[in-house]
């Protein structure tokens, strides 16, 4: 299912540190056979293939195969060396020095020698990322860095504006080559580089076929050792049903995100493995508090009680997910398990509305001072949006039961974004957030984030929440931060600026021939260089 996903790119936060040198390259088992090809199906096609200008999950997954960061995240969620061999952090936590590997080369351009990777490329990447003319979702994420300097050819130093908790994990951004983009100052979507990326990663771009299939081949000179599978092909599909059919008819070997509808079908097929992975994301109904009817907390709470989350999750998503209670994604350390999700209770919902001064009118619609509780739910039109359509129609029905009239208004995608984020001319939206730092919700609920094209689209403003968010950001102690976030979770669950719904379990499906498949929650292909296909299955 394709959700209306708005990627909140803030910062990657990971528990635990593994400092110093580890021999990631040497850990690789050399007994696994090389060879074989893997083609995987994606729903839709990416606009750009580089890690900086793109904001789509599809290109993010490709970047994982083509590029590397200074540090990586292991399967056990530890920080491991990648392009940086080791690092040092100053005592005050404001300077980080990275010592780079000397054996790394860039993917060769056709007919050219492969160029070596140096500190120059790191500084270049940082500068191009922060250039105001570069349009990238990454900029806000790295505003805490003051500058990047090259100390020598293989040493680079970052100076931070202020100490940051888990700063090291944030240096996992992908490094691009200085000789890549044609413009050395900033990167736009017109640059040739965004369609022909050059990286250091396990796979390099071979070509994009006429059918827009993206063909990647193994990088023989990959610094962690040659990846096992010879070729990765990303095949775009415009229809999720066909995507599933393609898998069952062996036209592809893997689907990165299985449509919830097709889960049962694939589950019954012995040729495939269905692997769940949890992305840090959740779906919600968001309210526009500029509307005086919705500014009343009791009205928003009433909506929360009126909605039967479990029924929707079971009926529309085969129960593949978790009901949530608050603003953090479950699975995040910041999530407060002591807060219970609002139960389905129509009586309580009606009571809350009466308490807020609403009385049923002659037509059954609740009203207060002659003002009817009539609201507009704005939904973007997407071709493959029937899961969204179902949730929206069910929501309309639930609210009808407590005497609230909801008008569903479908809008073309661009128009929808403008209505929600710029004009704020909506009452309710249904959407999902995808986090990569599940502990940072400042851009969603802090009052400084109210304004055109900012993420606090509902104009939620509460000094107590603001104070907690700031406190959480400035704290360097992990336990303290956890306590603050738990408080924040409980507070926002009660305040109900959103009706928090659920996190869906994502499923990947792949052919049994693929071995040693480990999946990163949202980057997906982080460990793909270790995947392999037994010789017998290579054909």
């Amino acid at each position, binding site marked *: 299912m394709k959700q209306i996903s708005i990627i909140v790119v803030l910062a990657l936060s990971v528990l635990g540190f593994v400092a110093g040198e580890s021999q990631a390259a040497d850990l690789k088992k050399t007994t696994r056979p090389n060879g074989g090809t893997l083609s995987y199906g994606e729903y839709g096609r990416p606009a750009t293939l580089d890690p900086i200008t793109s904001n789509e999950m599809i290109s993010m997954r490709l970047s994982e195969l083509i590029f590397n960061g200074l540090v990586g995240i292991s399967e056990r969620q530890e920080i491991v060396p990648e392009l940086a061999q080791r690092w040092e952090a100053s005592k005050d936590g404001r300077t980080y020095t990275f010592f780079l590997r000397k054996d790394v080369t860039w993917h060769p351009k056709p007919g050219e020698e492969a160029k070596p990777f140096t500190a120059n490329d790191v500084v270049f990447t940082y500068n191009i990322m922060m250039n105001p003319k570069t349009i990238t979702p990454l900029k806000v994420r790295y505003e805490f860095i003051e500058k990047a300097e090259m100390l020598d050819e293989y040493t680079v130093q970052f100076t931070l504006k202020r100490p940051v908790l888990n700063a090291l994990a944030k240096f996992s951004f992908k490094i691009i080559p200085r000789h890549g983009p044609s413009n050395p100052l900033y990167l736009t979507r017109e640059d040739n580089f965004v369609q022909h990326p050059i990286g250091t990663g396990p796979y390099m771009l071979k070509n994009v076929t006429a059918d827009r299939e993206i063909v990647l081949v193994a990088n023989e000179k990959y610094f962690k050792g040659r990846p096992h599978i010879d070729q990765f092909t990303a095949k775009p599909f415009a229809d999720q*049903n066909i995507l*599933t*059919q393609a898998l069952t008819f062996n036209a592809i070997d893997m689907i990165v995100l299985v449509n919830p*509808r*097709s889960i049962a*079908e694939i589950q019954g097929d012995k040729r495939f493995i269905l692997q769940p992975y949890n992305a840090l994301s959740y779906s919600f109904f968001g309210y526009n508090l500029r509307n005086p009817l919705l500014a009343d907390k009791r009205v928003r709470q009433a909506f929360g009680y009126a909605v039967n989350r479990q*029924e*929707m999750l079971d*009926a529309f998503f085969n129960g593949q997910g978790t009901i949530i209670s608050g603003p953090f994604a479950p699975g995040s350390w910041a999530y407060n398990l002591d807060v219970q999700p609002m139960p389905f209770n129509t009586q309580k919902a009606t009571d809350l509305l009466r308490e807020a001064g609403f009385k049923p009118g002659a037509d059954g619609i609740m009203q207060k001072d002659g003002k009817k509780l009539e609201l507009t739910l704005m939904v973007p*039109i*997407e*071709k*493959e*949006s*029937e899961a969204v*359509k*179902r949730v*929206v*129609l*069910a929501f*309309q*029905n639930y609210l009808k039961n407590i005497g609230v009239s909801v008008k*569903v*208004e*479908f*809008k*073309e995608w*661009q*128009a929808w974004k403008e209505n929600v984020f710029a004009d704020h001319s909506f009452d309710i939206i249904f959407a999902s957030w995808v986090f990569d730092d599940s502990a940072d919700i400042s851009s969603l609920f802090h009052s400084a984030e109210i304004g055109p094209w900012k993420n606090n689209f509902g104009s939620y403003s509460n000094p107590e929440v603001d104070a907690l968010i700031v406190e959480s950001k400035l704290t360097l102690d992990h336990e303290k931060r956890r306590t603050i976030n738990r408080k924040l979770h409980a507070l926002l669950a009660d305040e109900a600026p959103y009706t928090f719904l659920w996190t869906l379990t994502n499923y990947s499906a792949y052919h049994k021939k693929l071995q040693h498949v480990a999946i990163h929650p949202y980057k997906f292909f982080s460990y793909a260089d270790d995947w392999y296909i037994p010789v017998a299955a290579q054909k």
Partner: protein
Amino acid sequence: MRRSTRVKKYIQTSGEVSDFSKLPLHKKFSIPDLLYVGYGLLIVFLVLVSYVLGAFNLLPNDPQQINMDMLMAPPGTGGHLLGTDFMGRDIQSRLILGIQAYFLPGLLAIFISLSIGIVLGVLAGYRGGYAETVITYFTNLVDSFPRLVLILLVIAAFKPDIYYIMMVMGITGVPAVANAIAGKIRVLAQKNFIEAAIALGLRTRVIILKHILWYNCRALLIIQATLGMGEAILLETSLSYLGFGVQEPTPSWGNMVQSGANYFMQGNFWPSTAPALAILFTILGFNLLGDGLNNMLEGKRSR
């Protein structure tokens, strides 16, 4: 035309005086034509009945009643003759109510294309000269726009509303009507009876309205109108498949096919098959009606 047919008949029967209008139907017209028109009229009747049933809410079930315990129930279960859709709503009721989405908007589209088309056609055909050149350029211009793209532009600018869509459809239908009328007039202008009418001093208004449009173009206009209704349904269906047709929760045959198609592969064929068959038989009816009437009124296949 009928008058001239009658004359022809009279001459052919050489001596034997027989009044064409008193002949039995099957002698006057070919059997296939009668079947076409009969089937077409049946469909028109069914559409009218459905429209009335929908308008007065005389449906077997509440078409908006969501039932989350009965999602995609097969036909016949729980009093749902045609089963339920992806929200557990009764398909039969939604099918009947679905005609509401086309009826008035479709008539609007037909009205726009016929009224503007007639005016432009008469101007081009009867006046000729400068007016003809301008109108030909105009109709070519409208014709050169891809209709679907034009509609998507309008939707992006305003909102997906069936009336906007049908207005665009009406306007893009103008050239076909205008060209047909202008062509017809060009042919008629060489006929003696028009010349005679002018010679007798009949007013231009009378010649155009009575002798050209009423006596000689009404068949053509009826055909354009029936084809227009079928086209309206088809267009809404294709737009629905892109997600831009009539929007939920309002039912239309197009959005029923589209949402049902998502579950087709899982073996739930009825939510999309029922409206798809409705579309097939209805459009077939309108087209056959147009075809049959064309043959009858234009006398092309009369014995």
